[in-house]
């Protein structure tokens, strides 16, 4: 399963980078979203996959089960997801504003710092 996920991570990175390299800013933002998913999955896969072992301590027990998923990686990804949302919200409003000023969805036309 790791292998398959690793390939999926690769595909996500490929599409993300491809989109970021486009001239359209909207595509750039789409690329950013793909990139954040790709990075999250990268961390998730590298930490090791565990089936049926959520990092919880069941009610009544004082210790975790013998096999649980790595909680630290999950905490990191959780933070990343939320920050990704913040960045996205900001980026989306920013490109909308930029479009209103420049009237084009083309980065090559954003040459001045004055408009």
């Amino acid at each position, binding site marked *: 399963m*790791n292998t*398959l*996920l*690793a*390939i*999926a*991570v*690769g*595909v996500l*990175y*490929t*599409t*993300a*980078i491809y*989109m*970021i*390299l*486009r*001239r*359209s800013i*909207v*595509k750039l933002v*789409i690329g950013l979203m*793909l990139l954040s*998913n*790709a990075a999250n999955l990268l961390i*998730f*896969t*590298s930490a090791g996959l565990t*089936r049926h072992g*959520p*990092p*919880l*301590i069941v009610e009544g027990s004082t*210790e*975790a089960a013998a096999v*649980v*998923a790595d*909680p*630290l990686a*999950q*905490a990191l990804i959780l933070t990343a*997801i*939320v*920050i990704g*949302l*913040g*960045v*996205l*919200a*900001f980026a*989306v*409003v*920013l*490109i*909308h*504003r930029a*479009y209103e000023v420049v009237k084009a*969805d083309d*980065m090559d036309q954003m040459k001045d710092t004055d408009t």
Partner: protein
Amino acid sequence: MLYALLGGFGVAALAAWLHRLTGRHSGWILALWPATLLLYFLSFLPDINSGTVLFFYDWIPSLQIRLSFRIDGLSLLFALLISGIGLFIVAYAGRYLEGHRDLGRFYVILLAFMSSMLGVVLADNLIALFVFWELTSITSYLLIGFNHEDASARRSALQGLFVTVGGGLALMTGLILLGQVGGSYELTELLDNGDAIRQHALYTPILLLIVLGAFTKSAQFPFHFWLPNAMAAPTPVSAYLHSATMVKAGVYLLARLHPALGGTELWSALLGTAGAVTLFIGIWLAVRSTGIKKMLAYSTVMALGTLTLLIGIGSEQALAAAMAFLLAHSLYKGALFMIAGIIDHETGSKDLRDTGGLFRAMPVTAVVAGVAALSLAGVLPMFGFVAKELLFESVLDDPRTWLLAMVVAGAVMTVAVAALIGILPWYGQPVATKKIPHEAPPALLAGPVVLATLGLLGGLFAPWVDQHLLAAATSAVAGTPVNPDLALWHGINPALGLSLFSLIAGLLLYRWHDGFRTATAFTDTLAKRGPERGYDWLMAALVRIAETQTRFFQSGYLRYYLMITLLTSMSLVWLVIGMKGDGLRLHLDLRDVQFHEAVLIFTLMAGAITAARTTSRLGAVAALGAVGFTVALLYVMFSAPDLGITQVLVETLTVILLVLVLFRLPGFLKLSSTALRVRDAIVAASVGVTMTALVLFALDARLYDSISHWHIAESLPSGYGRNMVNVILVDFRALDTLGEIFVLALAAIGVLAMIRLRAEDKRHE
């Protein structure tokens, strides 16, 4: 000792303020500092024959960098010259630049230079020596460019800086290698270790690098061109830095390292050849010049060549000659430069052809100039004569006869130059000058008078100078005790014959120097093709390379920045894997894949590819949603329920946001050609492949134990929570979460601000 050295920087820092406080007498007031130093260094003189005095202060002990200083004959000779001539230069500058609005700044740099130069000659630690060495280059740069409104001064300053600092770079490498090979950065230990260093395999590169540093600093051919250009500096600077002290730093270094590096055939060939060629070219150009300062500058090049040649020959007599010549040259050249400044200051002319008959107006200066010029020409009974005799004797002993030819030719032309300077401006028909000439004021005259007198006394009391200073200096250069027995009269010998010959031939050359100049005019075209052309070409090439390189890397397009960054990091990753990845293997295993998982992964990949390829905005958003929700499902299936929940929430919000905003924007356009798309796809795919490979490598390699065990074990007892991820977020790593909240708040404020801005725009319309 430390106060003597670093105190100078303190005085330099205060100089501008002191200047403002004391007004027109600031030169004399500030000259008190070098005077103090001179007395301090003179106090070492009585004991100098009893050995080296060392001072230690720790600086950066972990790197073996110590502020250690040594006083032996060589460093004392230099220290006395630096502080002694410095004393007169500071006083001289106060008068010479009187009323100049930047005089305060001038003092600051001049005094800082003085301390740096003392640092160079007194340092016992190679690294400390190098630091001071570079400081002299920088202060020299600032002083040459003192008249920074003049474009040619700026150019000369930069030229001097590039040449000396470029050599400094080589020197640094050489010194570090020397320190590694010799096992210490302390000169005291290195100088005793000469045999081991000379037999080391790295001896040749060390020697070449250090010699390169010394040659650039001491203006040896083919680096001689910066020195005459450095005459753009005010005359006190030319007299001090570019004649008496700084340019001798290279010579000092060669002399200092002679016990450690010298005595080999390479040493003798390298220094001998460069020195002789520099000597000849220098004095040739001096005879051909008409500007007084230019002429003196070129004759300084000659002197530096002579010193290098003598150190290259390396016999005891040659070393003694080098020390005597060094002392003689500093005395007469300092004096002559200051006299050149006086002529400029009092008459407004800088050219020999514009002066004449000045004796009547300024008799004292004329006499002093005559005395200094006699020393330059090496006439009995001046100290210059002693030095010249020794020079001839050393070169006569050397098997290379062409050296002798060069030296004699140089001596003939030196006499001519001395005559030009000592006679032409003072006697004959008075020439009308820009200003009406007056006798120079005492502050300007003090230096030349004292230095020229010392040059005379030095000759008369040569054995005294020898016993009390030069013997110790020569011994320090030779590495063994030497007694050179300097005397004014050596008896009738071949050297005396050569002396007489050069004197007569030089005077003849002086008599017909106009004819000589016309006859040798052809060399000017040669000189134009000289090393300075090479320098200009190099600088132009540097600018072109910088321009091309900047255009390439700083294109201004986000995608090119990204591409360069990505391709560089990918190459580095693969480089490391290629070099150190012996134990790595790709962890490929598809046996445990369950059907529904496979379906999810394919949905994910299909969604991502669709998002990248679709031409419809709605399609892209839908595909993105598919990707996001699939990732959420993957989280859930692999034991990360919290991630799953968050991802679903975030994804929902994202889709709504995108739909709301994107549809106010125009539809997708095809902005790039197919070729560009293919290129981008290749870059993107290489990143994707690298990331896949990294994950597969990472699964197989675990270098460190996970720290998660602690989090798992302590979640309930320390964090009082059953959901470990939650405990980590709000307890163990609560500060991270605080940071995250902060980021979100900032993003929210940013969004709000942009929306408000738009609302206001609308209202204005």
